[in-house]
């Protein structure tokens, strides 16, 4: 990951010009429009708010300002200040309020401006919302969604307190569902599913992906929570990844095709509960596994994915499972240090070559 060649095969990976052709999810002939992920999320919110009067939004500066990333822009004008509710800077109580509203039958979609700040809300998320259903013997239901932008390297150098990927904090807590979409299509379909789900759902949005474009069907659709999505079929190597890292995997899969390496890409778009079967099946098929996550390496998601593959496919493994993950460091501000924090396409190429040559 710190090899000087890591950007050599970069496909503009860290910029929005990365080609959206890499992932096509809408069958030819289906009426669809190209949208950014931010637009797709906004559309999901608007459609669900239209459909169900119980759905409302709350968070800091989500009103006129549209949130830190403009995702809710226009919704305030459309739905008004009650249903697009600006809050004080009180993360724990924003989540607590969402829980309370959910308990009396509302379906709140709360936003925390950056996932990093959810450190202030961990009690309400992990101790209250996640546990109320079991703790009350089924009396309580907490149907909220908590949207949180995460991830680093927006080319913006936002440093240690605005760049983390923290899905593991949530995925480790039973009672929560954790989603991390990689495409506009997935973001829209999964967010709609999350809003309709009767459980607290953590919905993580990678900041770099907001401006990524992709086809989104005109027709309403809802995607299943709890399943991995095979983004590309292949026979030689499986890459298990989520969020932004899926694009690296797809770019490299295309790049290696002429070399005759057939890469299968499994997108863990539901981080938890984890779809162990799909990871197992793909690993059994290819016998070679690379796990890639942006979250910091130690005790990150990659260990769990690898363990699951091991449990499900040990006898099929032709090489040791490889992993790529975020450098185990707080994120530094300087460009020269931020480079190298997260896996790149070159790293993915290197790891796949390792697997093939083992």
């Amino acid at each position: 990951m710190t090899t000087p060649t890591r950007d050599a095969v970069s496909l503009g990976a860290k910029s929005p010009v990365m080609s959206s052709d890499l992932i096509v999810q809408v069958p030819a002939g289906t009426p669809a429009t190209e949208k950014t992920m931010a637009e797709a999320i906004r559309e999901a919110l608007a459609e669900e708010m239209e459909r169900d009067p119980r759905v409302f939004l709350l968070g800091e500066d989500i009103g006129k300002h549209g949130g830190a990333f403009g995702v809710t822009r226009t919704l305030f004008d459309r739905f008004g200040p009650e249903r697009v509710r600006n809050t004080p800077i009180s993360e724990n109580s924003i989540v607590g309020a969402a829980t309370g509203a959910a308990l009396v039958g509302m379906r709140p979609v709360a936003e925390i401006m950056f996932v990093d700040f959810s450190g202030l809300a961990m009690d309400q998320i992990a101790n209250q919302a996640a546990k109320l259903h079991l703790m009350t013997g089924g009396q309580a239901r907490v149907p909220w969604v908590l949207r949180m932008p995460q991830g680093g390297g927006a080319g913006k150098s936002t440093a240690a307190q605005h760049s983390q990927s923290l899905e593991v904090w949530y995925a480790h807590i039973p009672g929560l569902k954790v989603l991390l979409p990689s495409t506009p299509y997935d973001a829209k379909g999964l967010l709609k599913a999350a809003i309709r789900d009767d459980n607290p759902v953590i919905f993580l949005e990678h900041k770099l992906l907001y401006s990524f474009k992709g086809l989104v069907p005109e027709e309403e659709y809802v995607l299943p929570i709890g399943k991995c999505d095979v983004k590309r079929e292949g026979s030689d190597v499986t890459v298990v990844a989520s969020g932004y890292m899926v694009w690296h995997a797809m770019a490299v899969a295309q790049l290696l095709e002429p070399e005759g390496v057939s890469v299968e890409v499994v997108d863990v778009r539901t981080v938890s509960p984890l779809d162990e079967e799909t990871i197992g099946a793909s690993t059994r098929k290819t016998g070679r596994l690379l796990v890639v996550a942006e979250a910091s390496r130690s005790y990150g998601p990659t260990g769990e994915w690898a363990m699951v593959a091991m449990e499900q496919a040990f006898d099929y493994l032709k090489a040791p499972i490889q992993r790529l993950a975020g450098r185990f460091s707080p994120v530094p501000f300087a460009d020269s240090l931020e480079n190298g924090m997260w896996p790149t396409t070159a790293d993915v190429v290197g790891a796949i070559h390792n697997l093939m040559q083992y």
Partner: protein
Amino acid sequence: MESLTTEFKLEMYRRMVRIREFELAAMDVFKRGLIKGTVHPYIGQEASGVGVCMALRPDDLIAGTHRSHGHNIAKGADPARMMAEIFGKEAGYCRGRGGSMHIAAFDTGSLGALAVVGSGIPIAVGAALGFRMQGKDSVAVPFTGDGGTSTGNFHESLNMAAIWKLPVIFVVENNKYAVSTYYRDAVSTDDLSVRAAGYGIPGVNVDGFDVLAVYAAAHEAVARARRGDGPTLLVTESYRIEGHYAGEPEVYRSREEVNAQRQKDPIVRFAEVLTSDGTATPEELQEIQSAEAARMVAAVEFARSAPMPDPATAMDYIYA
């Protein structure tokens, strides 16, 4: 506040006695090793919970704490199902999954007891927000202790409810201790109700041993909240007669201190009011007491003999 009917006042008394008897029974079964977990007795504070909850309608909601047996009973919960819960039985309110610290009784408007101090407060604020959005005039009442006022949740929630004018009555039960900590060693003001001014809302301090005084203050706060005029901070001053939990050693206070406070027994005090104003005879009150004591014997019997949750259901209720 219209004058209270005899029936109403006797119901107040009954609930106070019911709480007392429940707590005595719970401490007893705990001491006898019949239940696990912990028991945080509400003894001495009965007037606070009952005064507040009798001012509420069934569709109003309360959010409790680790010390919420009393709140649940005051709001109308069935002691037998509560007892079954602290025995960890399937017949308990939470099917045995919650235990003493987590009794929720949705059917009588108790949305859960949360044992992380302060964590129920924003949840009640959210319930109030939900009511408002649904066009209902129900109110939400988070209970917290003096110790709970030091949490960030307390402040965030008061501010949020104040700016949104939500129908919340924040009830702080100052029983003078948070575990071993005397309130003035952790709370930066003698009277916690003065904090209300910082949020631009009414703050009321009331004698928490006097159920009628608590009721009157709660009644006014509830009316205000229902009218849409926003939250109130209501502080009830009482005392925690028992240890923090049943069996807690109490190295931090003297027997004399406790005994002096014990004289203020809110049940005895209310009984005097009821007999002196002619609402009831001592015999009638004694009958209530006997009935509630008997009820607890039956509740314990019910709870003891009820079945445990089936281990085969261990994966139920993790996800809805």
